[in-house]
């Protein structure tokens, strides 16, 4: 903050926030040399000579002569681009800007790709830019430079002048970019470097300002403005030493150019600080005389008059400042202050409000507005506004003085709400579990199988956490379970885990694999609403038939009707979609029959088409001109409106694609187009129908189903597929979940059933199916039964079952952890409570809920910006949870699909292209990940959960036990204790590192027993 001694608090505030280096009006640089073009006829040659002569006269500021010569050139050749350009330059010099622009337009309107003409067009664009700049039309000035760049990319003047126009619009970041580009094109240009630094000043980067001025002065030691800018930056930094440097630099600048207005302004400012108001006034007046268009001088003059309590003079000065710099918040705030002094309170409120609009961080404007409103007899609402303004001013002052840090608001997160299993159904579950054990035991006898013994508590606690929560238990969870003497602690833990949020996380991973879930099923569709719908449905235990029915039959936009995400996964591919649905939900593959009768199953091509006929009318998108959804073709209207929005042409073109994309996003409606009928393909080769015949919907199997009145074919299909009468719906989900629990299905593979398929234990399969139906597809209750069986709680099978041979469930199969189980277990070891949650899709809903029939193009742009902002917030939040670039969150919170070199993909997570494409087979890169991956090493660092657990223990042997319980969920045996203790004794803390590293690298860690 600048120390301005005797100034009143308002002036201090304004000076404090005043961007010392930004209110300049540039002086137009000299025109560049002309590129000569090959002249055709003699007349053209004559015209060209005259045009060049005119340009020379312009260069010497002899505008009238230049204009006359240019007119002669045009008399010789009325279309000569060189001559038109010359006349435009002369006219501009005389101040006839509109006429000049007409000339430049005539040049840029000439088509053709002759290099000389391209060069002339580029220059005409730049000349027009300068004229527009002089008119104060900065946006068109920027566009003109952009057009010049499109003609000729490496064009110094175009980039440089664009930089100036950006400065005038206070777009400092862009200005830096333009000057930077100019400086690269002409590495000898001191001015470009100096301006780049100047633009940095607008962003408060004063050291950059100084650095660039130093570079500029190396290139041109006589560049007075560079000294001045260095001085201005020093003043802005405000330290004592800085001010001494500033005094020296100002002297140097004025020595080179005694009329350098900016330097005079700086000196005035220093005089204020020294308490010499008269000197300050004298310098400001000198500055205004030297550069009447320098807004900053007017602003400083206004502030001085305010200080001298002459409100009338101050108002006049601020009026001038505002005329010259209409985007100066400080000038508005100053005039507001002057109005306050003359008791023009309403005008004061207006000016302060305008100032706040232009710069929301100007504390003086808030304070001033509050003061003005106090004098306006405020009502209750007015009082509240005053209070808010004062609070805002106070906070901004505290932030500026470093008393207060910006507030850290907690980021938005999506948490599921989980439902517990029903305590009243506990006994019923145990009874069903017993029945299952009976069926299994019957098969033991039949196939002469010796079942495995029951698990001990250590094995059980690890397995049940992995199977329900999808991760190993923490040290505390393990010990709590092991020390408990309750006889029903296992069944209690099962219930607890089924009711936890971890359940939804783990089963989401499973279904994301089956459903090929992607965050971007197509470029313009976001998957998050669907993703969170799946999670929430699992957590609240929505019955499976309801979930599937919603996925198959939902209509509308993704954020309004999230289950439509299922259909958005196969956009425009109804045949593939029906194929996928039958496979996923009915465990049946009819894909082969898409092109010909199924070679190994009974399905005919016609049957495939009959099944597909249900979903063939379904569309996954519409367009903004579709009359069925919107009135008056809003697509065309919005595109027109978009073209008329005031913005940079480059942005308009760049964002145009995104605008179109947003329109597509807003029209991704799933609906049924009743007119669409499926026809047999052209190469249909069977005798029961002809190619091109329309096919009516007919169920693949099961009882006939009659459409209800008004029911769409897709709704009929959803009703048929999820009905209890469907012979394969209940059996498929019962078998899929059985496999999740035991590692092997009753029927294998789970999604390729045929009429000839026989389950390992047909009576048991029948019972499981009937249980699923009896429970009305309540998945948690069904899983509760399976986890409570003796069969599940046996030790894992130790014998090799040959490929293709039936597995008779002497216990669950030994399985390698899935990629997600392995990752989530690592994350558990590293951070205990992985607290990151994905951002809620509802924020997108808020941004995207737009009725395009009534929306304006501006509203569409606002919605685009909102989505971008949310994404930014999300990315920022993620940064906080990252360790060396890895987001330490549960697998179910991570993007989908992940890049191929992510831990999860290396360990076999699906790329989400094919149904159930995950894998649990090993590979060398997996082992390398375990050996050397960052996440392994994180375990060995301070602050990891395991590290914290160890340091809490006092003795070495206790520490070793903790390590084993944390990583393997069991106590070490005597030999292991001895081995581990020897490590720690010989290597100290590094010995613990060796033990931890080795334990996570055991097969015991990676396999689910």
């Amino acid at each position: 903050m600048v120390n301005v001694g005797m100034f009143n608090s308002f002036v201090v505030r304004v000076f404090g926030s005043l961007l010392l280096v930004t209110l300049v009006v540039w002086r137009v640089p000299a025109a560049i040399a002309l590129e000569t073009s090959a002249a055709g006829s003699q007349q053209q040659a004559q015209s060209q000579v005259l045009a060049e002569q005119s340009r020379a006269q312009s260069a010497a500021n002899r505008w009238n002569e230049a204009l006359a010569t240019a007119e002669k050139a045009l008399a010789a050749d009325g279309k000569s681009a060189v001559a038109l350009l010359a006349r435009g330059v002369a006219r501009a010099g005389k101040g006839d800007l509109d006429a000049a622009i007409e000339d430049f337009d005539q040049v840029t309107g000439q088509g053709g790709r002759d290099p000389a003409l391209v060069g002339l067009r580029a220059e005409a664009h730049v000349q027009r830019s300068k004229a527009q700049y002089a008119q104060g039309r900065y946006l068109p000035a920027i566009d003109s430079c952009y057009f010049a760049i499109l003609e000729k990319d490496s064009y110094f003047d175009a980039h440089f002048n664009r930089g100036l126009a950006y400065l005038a619009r206070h777009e400092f970041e862009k200005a830096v970019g333009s000057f930077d580009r100019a400086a690269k094109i002409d590495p000898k240009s001191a001015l470009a470097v100096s301006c780049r630094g100047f633009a940095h000043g607008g962003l408060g980067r004063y050291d950059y300002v100084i650095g660039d001025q130093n570079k500029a002065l190396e290139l041109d030691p006589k560049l007075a403005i560079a000294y001045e800018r260095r001085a201005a930056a020093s003043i802005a930094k405000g330290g004592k030493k800085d001010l001494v440097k500033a005094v020296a630099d100002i002297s140097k600048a004025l020595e080179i150019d005694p009329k350098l207005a900016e330097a005079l302004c700086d000196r005035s400012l220093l005089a204020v600080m020294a308490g010499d108001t008269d000197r300050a006034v004298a310098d400001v007046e000198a500055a205004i005389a030297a550069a009447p268009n320098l807004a900053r001088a007017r602003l400083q003059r206004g502030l001085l008059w305010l200080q001298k309590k002459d409100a009338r003079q101050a108002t006049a000065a601020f009026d001038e400042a505002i005329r010259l710099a209409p985007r100066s918040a400080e000038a508005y705030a100053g005039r507001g202050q002057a109005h306050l002094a003359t008791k023009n309170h309403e005008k004061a409120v207006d000016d302060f409000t305008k100032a706040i609009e232009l710069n929301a961080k100007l504390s003086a404007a808030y304070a001033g507005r509050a003061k003005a409103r106090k004098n306006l007899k405020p009502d209750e609402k007015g009082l509240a506004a005053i209070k808010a303004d004062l609070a805002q001013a106070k906070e901004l002052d505290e932030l500026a003085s470093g008393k207060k840090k910006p507030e850290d608001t907690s980021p938005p997160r999506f948490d599921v709400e989980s439902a517990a299993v029903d305590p009243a159904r506990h006994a019923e579950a145990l009874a069903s579990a017993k029945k299952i054990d009976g069926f299994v035991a019957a098969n033991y006898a039949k196939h002469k199988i010796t079942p495995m013994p029951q698990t001990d508590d250590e094995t059980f606690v690890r397995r049940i956490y992995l199977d329900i929560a999808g991760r190993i238990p923490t040290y505390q969870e393990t010990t709590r379970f092991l020390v408990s003497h309750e006889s029903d602690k296992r069944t209690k833990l099962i219930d607890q885990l089924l009711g936890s949020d971890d359940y939804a996380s783990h089963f989401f991973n499973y279904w994301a694999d089956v459903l090929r879930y992607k965050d971007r099923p197509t470029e313009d569709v976001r998957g998050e609403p669907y993703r969170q719908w799946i999670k929430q449905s699992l957590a609240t235990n929505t019955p499976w038939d309801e979930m599937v029915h919603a996925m198959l039959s939902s209509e509308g936009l993704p954020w309004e009707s999230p289950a439509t995400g299922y259909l958005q996964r196969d956009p425009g591919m109804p045949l593939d979609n029906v194929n996928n649905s039958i496979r996923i939900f009915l465990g049946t593959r009819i894909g082969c029959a898409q092109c010909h009768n199924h070679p190994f199953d009974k399905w005919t091509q016609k049957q495939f088409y009959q099944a597909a006929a249900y979903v063939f009318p379904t569309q996954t998108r519409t367009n903004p001109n579709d009359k069925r959804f919107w009135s008056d073709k809003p697509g065309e209207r919005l595109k027109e409106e978009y073209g008329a929005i005031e913005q940079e042409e480059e942005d308009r073109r760049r964002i145009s694609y995104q605008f179109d994309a947003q329109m597509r996003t807003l029209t991704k409606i799933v609906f049924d187009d009743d007119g669409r009928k499926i026809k047999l393909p052209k190469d249909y080769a069977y005798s029961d129908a002809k190619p091109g015949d329309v096919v009516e919907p007919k169920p693949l199997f099961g009882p006939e189903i009659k459409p209800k009145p008004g029911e769409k074919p897709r709704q009929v299909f959803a009703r048929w597929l999820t009905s209890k009468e469907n012979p394969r719906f209940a059996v498929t989900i019962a078998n899929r979940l059985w496999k999740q629990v035991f590692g092997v299905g009753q029927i294998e593979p789970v999604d390729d059933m045929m009429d000839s398929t026989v389950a390992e234990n047909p009576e048991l399969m029948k019972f499981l199916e009937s249980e699923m139906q009896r429970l009305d597809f309540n998945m948690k209750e069904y899983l509760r039964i399976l986890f409570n069986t003796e069969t599940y709680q046996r030790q894992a099978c130790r014998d090799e079952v040959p490929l293709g041979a039936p597995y008779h469930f002497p216990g669950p199969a030994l399985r390698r952890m899935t990629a997600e189980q392995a990752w989530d277990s690592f994350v558990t070891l590293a951070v205990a409570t992985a607290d990151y949650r994905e951002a809620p899709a509802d924020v997108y809903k808020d941004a995207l809920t737009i009725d395009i029939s009534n929306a304006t193009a501006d509203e569409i742009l606002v919605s685009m910006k909102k989505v971008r902002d949310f994404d930014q917030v999300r990315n920022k939040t993620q940064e906080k949870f990252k360790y060396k670039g890895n987001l330490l969150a549960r697998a179910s919170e991570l993007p989908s699909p992940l890049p191929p070199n992510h831990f999860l993909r290396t360990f076999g997570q699906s790329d989400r292209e094919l149904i159930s494409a995950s894998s649990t087979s090993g590979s060398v890169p997996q082992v390398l990940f375990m050996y050397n991956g960052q996440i392994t090493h994180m375990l060995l660092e301070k602050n990891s959960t395991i590290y914290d657990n160890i340091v809490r223990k006092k003795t070495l042997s206790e520490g070793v036990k903790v390590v084993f319980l944390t990583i393997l969920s069991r106590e070490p045996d005597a030999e292991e204790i001895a081995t581990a203790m020897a490590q720690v004794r010989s290597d100290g803390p590094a010995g613990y590192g060796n033990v931890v590293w080795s334990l996570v690298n055991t097969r015991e860690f990676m396999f689910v027993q």
Partner: protein
Amino acid sequence: MRDVVSRMDGWSRRQFLERAARLSLGVGLYSGLNDAIGAEQAKAGSRAGGKAKRLIYLYMQGGMTHLDTFDVKPGSENQGQTGAINTSVAGVQFSEYLPSLAGQFGKMAVIRSMNTETADHEQGEYLMRTSYEQIATERHPTIGPWIQRLKGRQNKNLPDTVLIGSGARHPGAGFLDPTFSPLPIGDPNKGLENTQSPKYLTEESFEKRIALINKFDRRFREKYPLKSVQSYTDFYDEATTLLTSGELQAFDLGKEKPEDRDRYGRDPFGQGCMLARRLIENNVRCVEVTLGTWDMHNTMWDYNTLPKMAGILDQAVGTLLSDLSTRGLLDDTLVVLATEFGRSPTINYNAGRDHHPAVFSSMLAGAGIKGGQIYGKSDKRGHGVEEDGVTPADLNATVAEALGLPRDEVVMSPTLRPFKVAHDGTPIRKILS
């Protein structure tokens, strides 16, 4: 395939498919079946063995402009700011941005008549890499895993296929077993990830740790003498061997002289090409290096866009070809450069070019290729194919032919659909040596 099948009568179709299915567990279709499926199949029969043993596949992501690289049209008003230069062969010109490649034209065959029907990046890329259209129910393998599937694994310790700088949507091994999956390398400068032990760990202490694993794990492995556990143990042994064998040096560009690395260009693609050469030298069979993005809709003559990108391409591939040649590796290494589509001849109002699948270019060099040739022709404006159109399947069939792959061998996917490498494309005999 589908055409052949649909032309068969009901009985032979069923018989064919049943037989194909029986062979689906890995063995290819034997030649006896050719009779049943007719002449079409015989025509596609492949030769005994190509000359190329290894493949470097350079993928130009985003749609490489043909007019500003391999198919310049000097004097055309669509040419924009790109000039033409002569190549080492009289009468053939490349863009001025490819001086090094122009000088080595004698090594390469350039196809100027590639074409597809899709202007969508993802679908185009997929088609180019697999020869099949992208569908929701199947994932097709790319060339590296195809080679491994058809010819067996070549390298004991190192993977057969390495991808450098490919994105998440690379189809990889497709429906083939995950063990065929290519090894992805994100940053060629870092080499193979997770092979760097922490600094405090000496070789001795690493061995100590390995010994510890085995001690702690003994009980578990005795309890579960299963194949799945054993195979995991094998991977541990392989990984340990790899880390200690020195073969990892193949991934380490730090072993190259800095001035040699400079010759390739110090950008990810240049370094990727150098890494490709190192891997090829170490008997890795297929390396794919991606250069993106060529999606130049805006201000493409900006020094940061076309000139920069083409400069990277020219320096890297120019150096790669001359290095392979001087080391004698070009005699058994095939180099292919491909992209999903070209860019529109008409320059758009943003001074860029848009997607253009109607005609574009591709390049092959090295083993099995007759150099110094142009194949196919685009029309005057560079808008469409004038002569000898080539589809992605044809290009891939040419690659397969040069590698000596059995193009008629049917491999069944797990959904029991039949697929072939290069999808019955026709190899371009004229450019094969």
